[in-house]
Every structure is written in structure tokens, then in C-alpha cells.
């Protein structure tokens, strides 16, 4: 994939509606009307998003002039997905460590608070 294509891919994915459309398409081919329904959007608005997704190489559309069913491009999506999984894992593991840290730091504070304070020599 060229650098331009990839920029287009990420620009396409920056929009939550387009991500939701892609998620819908993972269940199978759909027409514009099918896609418009759950999003409470007009046909033209959905078509606009589809155009962006198509340019980005994330979806392909059938030749049938009237229906032009949309389907996902699995390879392009797989590449995006690999990246996102890696990113997600980074965050999940950091949050695991944060949880441990918060647990420890609160336990320490508790045990400190439990001990009588000794006056310091000056």
C-alpha cells in the first residue's frame, strides 16, 4: 500500500461513523439503504462516507448501478486491525500496571497511617 493510500486509510478511520459502518460490514455485504437504517442517516450522507471508505481501500462496491452493494476489503482491514491490536495491548498492559501501582500505593499509605508517629530529633 502506498503512503498516500495509508494516509487516506487513517483519515477514513478517524471518523466514528465510518468505523461503525465498517463494523456493520463485517457481518456481510450491504446496500446503502441497509447501512443508512441503523445510523438514522440519509442515503446521500451514507454515500459520502462510503466514498471515503472506498477511496481508502477499506471497502469495495459492486458494479450493479442501482444497488452497488458494499463489502469490506479484508486485507486492508487486517492491516489496520493488526496495528490497532498492538496499540490496544499497549494500553491494556499499562492499565494493568496502573491498577497494581494504585493498589500498592494505597496499601503503603494505610500501613504508614497505622503506625504512631515518632517525634523527629532536631
Amino acid at each position, binding site marked *: 500500500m502506498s503512503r498516500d493510500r495509508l494516509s487516506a486509510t487513517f*483519515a477514513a478511520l478517524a471518523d466514528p461513523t465510518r468505523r461503525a459502518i465498517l463494523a456493520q460490514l463485517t457481518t456481510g455485504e450491504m446496500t446503502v439503504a441497509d447501512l443508512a437504517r441503523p445510523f438514522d442517516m440519509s442515503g446521500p450522507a451514507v454515500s459520502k462516507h462510503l466514498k471515503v471508505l472506498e477511496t481508502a481501500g477499506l471497502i469495495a462496491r459492486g458494479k450493479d448501478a442501482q444497488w452497488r452493494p458494499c463489502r469490506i476489503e479484508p486485507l486492508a*482491514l487486517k492491516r489496520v486491525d493488526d496495528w490497532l491490536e498492538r496499540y490496544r495491548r499497549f494500553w491494556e498492559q499499562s492499565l494493568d500496571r496502573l491498577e497494581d501501582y494504585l493498589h500498592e500505593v494505597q496499601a503503603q499509605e494505610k500501613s504508614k497511617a497505622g503506625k504512631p508517629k515518632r517525634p523527629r530529633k532536631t
Partner: protein
Amino acid sequence: MSAAAAPKAPVADFVTSRVVAAPRDLVWKAWTEVERMKQWWGPKGFKVFHAKLDLRPGGEFHYGMKSPDGHDMWGKFVFREISAPSRLVFLSSFSDPDANVTRAPFPGREWPLRMLSTITFAERDGKTEITVRWAPFEATAEEQASFDGMRDSMTGGWGGTFDQLGDYLSKA
């Protein structure tokens, strides 16, 4: 290619959340005080050995961490919004030791330079719900060109190291 071959993509879902048993003020401190941040930031087994944090819009958190098999990895956040104790927004990226933005240190270096990350902290009966959202943040054409020029002038010795790190992260 059939649609049936499509991966079950969580593409709609650039978000993860976690409820931690700690008051929100403490969680906020853990994210915004450098000595605390050093204690937990990074994947399992990584150790932060360098951290500088300048908490203001436009300021940076720059960190260096060592992977369990001894490789260094650098990265940074550039803060965009700081609303204590409920919301932090920053651009995160990989970087070099001088805090210059770099590409991802593993195969697929053509991936986005920066991710826009939004962290929210909500109180839940004395606990805190942390929600992390992210989205690719595209560089302007100009930034891209200057970045690519810079990258071409860099020495190529990092590739192998970074590939190993990528392997590590994908197995972890």
C-alpha cells in the same frame, strides 16, 4: 475475496476502559506526576528509565523505557487539554532520545505518526473509571515531508532491534 474472510474487526471500538479501586484524585496524580507515572507506564515487564513531564497545554511527557529483553524504546505525549481531575487529551507518538517524533519501532513503520488520545476519569462510588480513547491523527502534508526527509538521513541500525521489539509486543 469474500466478505466471510473478513476479520472480526473491532474497528468501531477505539476505546478501552477500566474501573480501579482508588479515588479519582489519586488516579489523576498517577497520570500527571512524573515520579508516579514512572512506576506504571508501559507494557508488562517494561521499565521506565527516563521521564520528563511538563504538564501544560503544548507541554510534553517524554519517556524512555527498557523492554524485558533489554531494548530501549522512546515515546512522548504532547498535551492538548488538561482538565483536572477528569480529562486529559494528548497526541502520543514514538520518539527518539531527543524527543523528536519517529515512526512506530516495528514492522509497518508506515503507520500513523501520532495518535490522538483522550483519557477520562469518572468517579464511581469511591472507585474511578478510566476510559482511554484513541484515533489516528494525520500529519499535514508538510509535516509528513519534513518527517520523511529527516528519516532518510537517519542511520539504519535500528531496524533489527525494533523488529524484535515488535515481535515482543505482539507476543506479550
